[in-house]
């Protein structure tokens, strides 16, 4: 394999997850022999003496404080400020859900586009530059499109984002504003994705979630690294993660394992649980049936568009992660999603997009059915901001009451509403 002097001594090669064949660190994503996905591989013995708790603590508060465990050769050039979002101790929500120790990993405030996708895109675009791409692209259910558009703009790269045509209006505007070429496809995400793999082959662009996927996917690990560090170098007993392709869930698992391998955290039992929306739940359906063969959902039907991937690329690995860690999968209805969004907002002042509602709603079920015992620590991964999917909750949270600019009218309104509140419901 190619090992020039500019190559990272830590990130060594790509490796097929199925057969283990090694590949050079190029813009490739599947094994030419058996079509298995390629994954970044590292020299942990070289990383161990360098990436210590002290070294990490001395670095800026961004996801790049773990850079030896990220698959680029040089310094990051895109998204240097991404990550290190708050881990919020959520006592009010904990009481509502009936669990003792609960935290929200709050990627609704991730920089710059308010979702965890900025993590994966900063890695993918930093690597895209190292590989010499001028044009970057993606297939997206919305959040990824926003992030590619914004981060490409700041890096001076041309971007094409391909999305299902029926996405939420704010997710479309949040891609257009950065000057990205936004292409709406009449079809579901899986059809967009299929088209993107054809375009990637034909035009030689850097598709963050196609030919750059081995790099892109690794960015998700930083959510797991941060959780462990922010918990005081401890792995939470339970982590609840929403699933679209299933990639984030598998990468949080990889993050915990890597920190154990490097001796940064003590080995302890942990379970990772997956959450999906009922209208597109191929992974949780397979898990509940006890199989690892994920049956595609041809026509996803849910308000949770960011999770509406009918053919989840990492479904198989997600199921094995759930099984290996003693985790469970759950799914919830659209009504439960909205209730979950409102509960998180009213208890913790955090406005999550629909995927966050899925995580809260499924966590509630997992606690109720005993998969998560009440006396163990839980982290909910909340991956995107509610301002992006306002349509989902519009009209579901009441309406403002309108009065004239008159103190008398205000007094009357307040008296009436106080009376309502004191009446037993």
């Amino acid at each position, binding site marked *: 394999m190619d090992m020039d002097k500019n190559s990272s001594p830590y990130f060594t090669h790509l490796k097929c997850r*199925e057969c283990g064949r090694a590949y050079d660190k190029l813009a490739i994503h599947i094994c030419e022999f058996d*079509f*298995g*996905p390629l994954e970044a591989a590292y020299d942990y013995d070289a990383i161990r003496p360098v990436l210590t708790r002290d070294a990490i603590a001395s670095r800026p508060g961004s996801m790049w404080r773990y850079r030896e465990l990220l698959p680029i050769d040089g310094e990051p050039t895109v998204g240097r400020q991404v990550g290190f979002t708050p881990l919020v101790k959520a006592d009010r929500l904990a009481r509502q859900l009936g669990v003792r120790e609960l935290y929200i990993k709050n990627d609704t405030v991730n920089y710059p586009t308010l979702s965890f996708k900025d993590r994966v895109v900063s890695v993918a675009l930093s690597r895209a530059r190292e590989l010499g791409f001028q044009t970057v692209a993606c297939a997206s259910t919305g959040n990824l499109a926003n992030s590619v558009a914004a981060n490409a703009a700041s890096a001076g790269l041309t971007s094409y984002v391909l999305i299902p045509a029926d996405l939420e209006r704010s997710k479309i505007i949040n891609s257009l504003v950065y000057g990205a070429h936004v292409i709406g496809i009449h079809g579901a*995400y899986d059809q967009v994705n299929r088209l993107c793999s054809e375009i990637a082959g034909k035009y030689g662009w850097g598709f963050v979630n196609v030919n750059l996927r081995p790099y892109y996917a690794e960015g998700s690990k930083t959510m797991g690294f941060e959780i462990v560090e922010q918990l005081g170098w401890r792995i939470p007993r339970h982590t609840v993660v929403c699933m679209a*392709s299933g*990639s984030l869930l598998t990468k949080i698992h990889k993050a915990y394992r890597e920190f154990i391998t490097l001796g940064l955290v003590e080995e302890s039992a942990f379970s990772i649980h997956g959450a999906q929306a009922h209208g597109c739940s191929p992974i949780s359906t397979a898990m509940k049936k006890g199989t690892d063969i994920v049956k595609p959902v041809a026509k996803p039907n849910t308000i949770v568009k960011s999770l509406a991937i009918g*053919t989840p*690329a990492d479904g198989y690995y997600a199921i094995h992660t759930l099984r290996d860690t003693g985790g469970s999968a759950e799914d919830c209805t659209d009504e439960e999603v909205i209730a979950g969004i409102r509960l998180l907002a009213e208890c913790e002042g955090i406005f999550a997009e629909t995927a966050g509602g899925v995580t809260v709603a499924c966590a509630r079920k997992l606690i109720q059915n005993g998969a998560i015992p009440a006396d163990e620590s839980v982290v909910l991964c909340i991956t995107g901001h509610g301002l992006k999917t306002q349509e989902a909750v519009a009209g579901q949270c009441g309406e403002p009451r309108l009065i004239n600019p008159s103190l008398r009218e205000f007094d009357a309104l307040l008296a009436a509403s106080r009376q309502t509140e004191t009446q037993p419901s």
Partner: protein
Amino acid sequence: MSNNVRIPTPLRKLTNDQDVVLAGGANIGEILNDLEKNHPGLKERICDEQGNVRRFVNIFVNDEDIRFLEEKATAVKDGDEISIVPAIAGG
């Protein structure tokens, strides 16, 4: 009896760059054996050591994934269109 089998780009080195080849058999297992006879090396790319279709390879009979039919025992009629398609990773 023989059927058209669509070959994906990465496997066309084994079919002299043909994107469609003919193969005969009453079910997918027989079709795969026939493919191997005429295009040696093809089967190990499609099936693992146990002879099962690899996880990231999909075989469709008239747009139905054989995993949700009868896998390699899925019957094939004259004129059925068979496609071999690597799984698409994305998202």
